[in-house]
Structure formats: structure tokens, C-alpha cells
């Protein structure tokens, strides 16, 4: 074990129907991948409120992985497209906040793609490792105060993610 290696902490949001099952499948098939990702199960990638991502980053995550069903395969018909457009806007917002857009990644993984889930996870850990720890919003001592994190969670009004893209 190399103590000098930066080990990022990553929060992964998974869809109950595809990517969470892909993670299950990776497990059943005993595929090994980087242990840095901790998963939150949602019913759909469409449930992903961008503030969840900001919350995770504010609370100490170095990166966030969002996973959903392949376009056209959503169990709720088309909600993953909504996740996609939120993701694209979110990246712009993060850039505006001075956070590397690469800290958030969107991956499509069907329930059958355990191998893809494992590979993408490991790859993402490497990408975050290259970016280094997220220093955003942290005061000199380290972590951000809770009041601040509450505020920062809502600097972006969630509706802006819908309004801008709803024709």
C-alpha cells in the first residue's frame, strides 16, 4: 500500500433498474474494481436533483458519478434524457464555480453491463486521482462549515435546470 497515493472519495448515483443492477451483477460475477465509490440508489437517474451533486461535493466527495439506463432504454420511458440535460447544465454550473467539469461523470450502464460498470468506476477513480483532492469551498482548516454548505447547495435554483431547456 502506498500511503502517498491520493485516494479520492466518490459518490455514485445509480438507477434502481439498470446501473444499480449492473453493480449487483459486477458483484455476482466477482469483478474487481476500485473501492472508492459509494453508491446511492435512486429509482431513476431522472430523480437526480443537481443539488445532490453539489451536496456531495460540499460534504467531502472528490467526484460524483451519475449512472443511468442507456438512452432509449429508460424504465420510465425517457427520464434519463432529463438526467442528461441536467448533467450538461450541471457541468457548466460547476465550471462557473471553478470546479473541474471532469469531477462529475455520466455513465450509461444497463443491468447487463456489470463489466462496464466496473471498468467505468475504476477509470473514473483514476481520472479523479489525476485531478487531485477537491479543494473547493473548503476553508483553510479543511472542511466547509455546515451553514455554508447549506447555502452553497442552493446557489443554483433547481428550476433553472428545467427552464433553460424546456422549449
Amino acid at each position, binding site marked *: *500500500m*502506498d500511503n502517498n*497515493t491520493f*485516494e479520492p472519495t466518490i459518490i455514485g448515483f445509480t438507477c434502481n433498474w439498470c446501473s444499480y443492477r449492473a453493480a449487483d451483477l459486477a458483484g455476482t460475477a466477482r469483478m*474487481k*474494481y*476500485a*473501492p*472508492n465509490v459509494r453508491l446511492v440508489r435512486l429509482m431513476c437517474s431522472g430523480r437526480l436533483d443537481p443539488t445532490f451533486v453539489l451536496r456531495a461535493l460540499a460534504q467531502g466527495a472528490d467526484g460524483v458519478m451519475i449512472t443511468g439506463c442507456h438512452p432509449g432504454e429508460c424504465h420510465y420511458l425517457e427520464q434519463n434524457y432529463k438526467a442528461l440535460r441536467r448533467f450538461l447544465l450541471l457541468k457548466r454550473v460547476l465550471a462557473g464555480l471553478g470546479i473541474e467539469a471532469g469531477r462529475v461523470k455520466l455513465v450509461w450502464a444497463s443491468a447487463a453491463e456489470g463489466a462496464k460498470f*466496473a*471498468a467505468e468506476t*475504476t*477509470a473514473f*477513480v*483514476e481520472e479523479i486521482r489525476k485531478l487531485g483532492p477537491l479543494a473547493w469551498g473548503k476553508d483553510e482548516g479543511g472542511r466547509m462549515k455546515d451553514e455554508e454548505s447549506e447555502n452553497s447547495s442552493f446557489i443554483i435554483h433547481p428550476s433553472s435546470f428545467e427552464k433553460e431547456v424546456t422549449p
Partner: protein
Amino acid sequence: MPQMTDERVRARLTREEDLSLLHEVSMKTAGVSHLEMCIQCGTCGGSCPSAMDMEHTPRMLFAMLRAGMRDEVLRSNTQWICVSCYHCVVRCPQEVHIADVMYTLKGMAIKAKLYQDSTAPDFSQTFVDMVETYGRSFEFGLASRHYLKHFPLRLPGMAPMGLGMIAKGRMGIKPKKIRRMDQLKAILERASQLELTS
């Protein structure tokens, strides 16, 4: 926490001893070879216009690669008979980059000195030498030098053709040279170093 690099994950997935050759060829091929996806259907061997002169059909070579039969594969004449027509590539149901794999096998055979007939490797090398000297290919010099070495008996027969080409003004007898040969040389030199490290 231990470091889980790409390489470590990949190494685990491909630790199967026999797959190392397949993996090596795949890594040396331009683009993504999809070599491991071959289902042995024979579309390539069926499509090949020059299959009748090949010792092994491409399909057989892929099976041999999978079996780790390095010398047998590199010694095969198959890669040298390939005419790069890409029929197999567009028909392959598994999208294997067959023609590019053939290029890879040629390169590996040359490095391992495992080709049976030096005609093709020499032709390629002569061509490359010309390009590295002039930056352009030089058909006349290439053809004459090549025929001289490999088909001397054919030369009298080919001479009328060559003369015809010269007579019709279709074969320059003097090589053209690009202006910034120094630049090209620097690029190729660096590329050769990178080739060795990859």
C-alpha cells in the same frame, strides 16, 4: 488504500496465459481491433479475393493467435498475401479490424524475422526507404530496384511495360523531394522512438 490502476485491472482480466499473444497483437493494432470478439464464422476467409494463395485463412490465424501459436502465425504467408481490399472488414459481423491486424502481423513477423519469403518485406522496406529519403514515393526507382532483386528473370518481360510507362511520361525517372525533409525526418525519428516504448 491500494492503488487500482487501469493496468492492474486489465492485467487481471487478461491473466489467462494463452491470451497474451492475442492481447499483444490487439494492442499493437491501429484503432480498436476487436480481435478477441472473433466468432470463427469465416466471413473473412470467404470474402478474401486472394484466399486461394494463403496458407491459412484470416479466421485460422485468429484461432492460432488465441491458442498462443506465435511462431506459426508470424511464419504464415497469410498477412503477406492480404491485398487490403477491406471486404472482410466491412462484412465481419464482429467488427474486427482484420486488415489492420494483418499490418500488425507483418510488422511483428519482420521484427521476429519469421517471414518465409523476403519479397514483400523487402518491397515494403524499399518503399519506406524511398519515402524516408525523399518524402515522396518514387515508382521508377522502387519498381526497378525491387524487380532487380526479386524477379530478375521477369525483368526482360517487364521492361516493355516499364519503357512504355516512361515513354508515355508516366514514370518520372528522377525522384521528387519534399522541401522540408528535415521536418519529416525529425517526426519519423521521434515516432520510431515512441514505437519502441509502446
